């Protein structure tokens, strides 16, 4: 078990450094002049030259990467924004909790919806519930989050007035000048984004749960459990669910990462000041340090999630624990 953990950890570290290289390459393939961007509009050629020197842009590529890596590892710093000279670490620290609220809140919603619906669909294939659920799945998979977001904001926010149309409230310690704060306001403002997220992923997960449960129901060991005289609820709980929900853990680990991508759309629609909206703004301004910072941070999150999934998986599946 310990060896397994160490191997996973080393692998995660290696992966992270591989990603820094790829991310750094983006910096160079983008058709923009970093020095000019950093110096700002209306800067003289001399000023641009000076900025290029201070950013080490005239050094060889490997040296620049080395400096970038050194800054990252030694100072744990992602640099400063070209646009407003703000520390990228601060930008991320401010935006990440918003995205985390969205992604994790959304994940809780989509799991609580898709697991029971998936199981019920599997138990009664071709029933009214199953067909309704599968129609919902089709819509959910086909619909784009921007469209879902707009429809939700219009119907629930504008027409029915049940929820805010957009905006965000901090969970704790609202910043000075903020309109609102506290857990209740936070949740109230997050309802629509969560629902949007839920539709997006619940559809997919309902399908996966349904397929896994149906497959596990036909396994020999389930028949063995019945042959032992286990009542149906027990067969479902102790024998089918444990086995059929194992793959969900893996997929969840991967999708939390994917969800960061989905967050770009959802945050834009609802005006949430999270990582997704931040990266969109930075793209418009060619704010390379922020773009790179967020990309690296997102990658780090995905790597950490996957590491976490590996551990959880080893914990729940004895076959992995021991091999």
């Amino acid at each position: 078990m310990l060896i397994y953990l160490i191997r996973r950890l080393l692998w995660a570290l290696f992966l992270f450094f591989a990603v820094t290289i790829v991310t750094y390459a983006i910096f160079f393939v983008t058709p923009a002049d970093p020095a000019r961007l950093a110096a700002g509009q209306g800067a003289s050629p001399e000023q641009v030259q000076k900025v290029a020197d201070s950013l080490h842009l005239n050094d060889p590529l490997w040296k620049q990467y080395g400096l970038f890596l050194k800054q990252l590892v030694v100072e744990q710093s992602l640099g400063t924004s070209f646009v407003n000279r703000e520390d990228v670490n601060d930008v991320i620290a401010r935006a990440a909790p918003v995205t985390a609220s969205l992604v994790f809140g959304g994940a809780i919603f989509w799991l609580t919806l898709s697991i029971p619906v998936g199981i019920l669909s599997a138990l009664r294939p071709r029933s009214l519930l199953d067909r309704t659920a599968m129609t919902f799945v089709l819509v959910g998979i086909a619909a784009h989050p921007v469209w879902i977001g707009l429809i939700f904001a219009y119907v629930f926010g504008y027409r029915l007035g049940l929820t805010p149309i957009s905006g965000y409230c901090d969970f704790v310690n609202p910043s000075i000048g903020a309109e609102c704060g506290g857990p209740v306001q936070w949740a109230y403002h997050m309802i629509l984004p969560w629902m949007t997220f839920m539709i997006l992923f619940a559809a997919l997960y309902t399908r996966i749960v349904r397929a896994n449960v149906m497959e596990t129901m036909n396994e020999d060991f389930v028949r063995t459990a019945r042959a032992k005289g286990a009542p149906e609820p027990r067969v479902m709980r102790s024998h089918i669910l444990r086995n059929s929900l194992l793959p969900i853990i893996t997929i969840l680990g991967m999708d939390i990462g994917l969800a960061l991508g989905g967050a770009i759309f959802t945050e834009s629609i609802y005006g949430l000041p999270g990582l997704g909206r931040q990266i969109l703004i930075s793209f418009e301004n060619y704010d390379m340090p922020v773009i790179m910072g967020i990309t690296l941070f997102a990658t780090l999150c995905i790597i950490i999630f996957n590491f976490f999934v590996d551990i959880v998986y080893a914990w729940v599946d004895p076959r992995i624990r021991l091999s």
Partner: protein
Amino acid sequence: MALLDVRNLRTSFRTDDGIVEAVDGISFSVELGKTLGIVGESGCGKSVTCLTIMGLNNPRSSTSSGEAVFDGEDLIAASPQRLRELRGSKVAMIFQDPMTSLNPVKSIGWQLVEAVLLHNDISKKEARERSLQALTEVGIPRPERRIDDYPHQFSGGMRQRVMIAMAMINEPALLIADEPTTALDVTTQAQILDLMRKLQDDHGTAIIMITHDLGVVAEIADDVAVMYAGRIAEEGVVERIYTAPRHPYTWGLLGSLPRVDHDADRLAQIPGQPPSLLSPPTGCRFHPRCAYVMEQCVSVVPALAGVAGDPAHRAACLLDEETKAREGQRLADELLAGAT
């Protein structure tokens, strides 16, 4: 009186292609402490018969009729609740593939304890004690060290021993074994059969042994029923089936046994394929593959009829007694010659 008396049992399945009559009116009985071998090709309905008796067919796609009287109680008419109580306590079952028949994410101890606690109102500790005992009895070495291991840490033979321990743990009166040795290698097969025989002697359990392996039947069964396409072709005491078989299908099965004395390149086989049960042949279901086929075989369904002088030995064939006796004798002699 017989422990299990099956009368005119029918089971059919609704499939997308139509109704499949998997079991078409079969009758047999199992005596207390005895072993009945049910032999036949894949898809002849032998497994379905036993799953029907256990009440393990999917109730939504299958229907059964007839009777299966176990210890004075008709299992076909019994409520799902009653069947659940009987399963694992009075009637137990082991399956073909020990690799997939145990839950991969639960320790074998957990699975054995579950089997005990489902039918006994005792403490977990006592259940664990009993599980250890059961593992010892089926010959798992150092059970106290293996009980918390997971199925993937056991070999196929050891897993089948665990399955047998689990089936026998509540001392059932009847054990149904669905091809328990098919997935195992030959030496392990012999060990498992020995184990089953030993447990039968110790506990007086009756066994239904489903197999396509006539060698297994010869080794363990007291009585044999040969099934073909959902019906019983021939039944009787095991010696009689081997020394005086009365049905062309049984002849075919016996004739296709690999023989050391024959220097043939190919094994003898019954020509043709087992019929689809969606649209079974009319009359005798074996007639399209039978070497002795007569005109009436196509239209007349042969009844199981007792052999003269041995009413327990019955065969469903329209051939005249003389031919059946002569051909059966010839084949038995040939087999005997090969064996010595």
